[in-house]
């Protein structure tokens, strides 16, 4: 078997602000943008890597959720404990400078971590935790 990771999902609470972050600040390309019932699913990914994508999705549209569960997800997103993704780049300092210039919410400046990576952490507009580590 040879299975690749095709898509992963990150929640958004405002499609335009999330899209602006991933497209304009991180430089990702938009691959698909699907609207249904006033909600949007936006597929994005880094240029040059067409095989792996992130789908920005509206978590409230997940079928089978109770109202309590929907509220809990919205609250966890707001308080920053819901979703995380890890990125990597050869130029961490360049990426961080770009995030800082775009007034993104910074959680940690580039730091040498005791577990052996050098990384920084920021929030995307929906409160998701984005960590970017240096490739070395």
């Amino acid at each position, binding site marked *: 078997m040879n299975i690749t990771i095709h898509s992963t999902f990150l929640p958004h609470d405002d499609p335009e602000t999330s899209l602006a972050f991933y497209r304009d600040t991180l430089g990702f390309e938009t691959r698909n943008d699907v609207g249904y019932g006033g909600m949007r699913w936006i597929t994005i990914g880094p240029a040059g890597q067409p095989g792996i994508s992130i789908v920005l999705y509206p978590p409230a549209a997940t079928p089978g959720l109770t109202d309590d569960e929907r509220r809990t997800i919205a609250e966890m997103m707001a308080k920053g404990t819901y979703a995380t993704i890890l990125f990597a780049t050869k130029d961490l300092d360049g990426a961080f400078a770009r995030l800082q210039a775009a007034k993104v919410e910074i959680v940690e400046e580039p730091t040498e971590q005791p577990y052996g990576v050098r990384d920084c952490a920021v929030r995307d507009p929906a*409160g998701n935790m984005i960590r970017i580590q240096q490739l070395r």
Partner: protein
Amino acid sequence: MTSRPTAAQQLRDLARLRRVRDRIDREYAQPLDLETLARDAGMSAGHLSRQFRIAYGEPPYAYLMTRRIERAMALLRRGDLSVTEVCFAVGCGSLGTFTTRFTELVGMPPGSYRRQEASATEGMPSCVAKQVTRPIRNREAPAPEPQLASPPLPT
């Protein structure tokens, strides 16, 4: 009587608490205190403390100290910094407070921890050392939660 906040307002309030928490993670090495955090977030100190505790299970000052001690553990394991140097490097202004809180959270004073860790990982492959020395966040808290400031580690 105060009315129940609307759902949208409640989410805005939670996002505000998130920014306070992220600021603690970001600026733990600065001389932060509850009054500064509250003022910059546009809240009273008491309100921030209560709401933060409801959202995250511990008040902001405890979260700040846990963050500092966690970073101190990492710096002490390096072995090239003294306890006093580490204390100031993580933003603690008082060696006494630092030592007390460190001992509460880690189970031994920082000096003992430094000596123990310096010899414990000697000769150990670095991938093993990384696993066994992983800091346990806030082990005295009643409801431990995963630590936001560091990524999940490969196991």
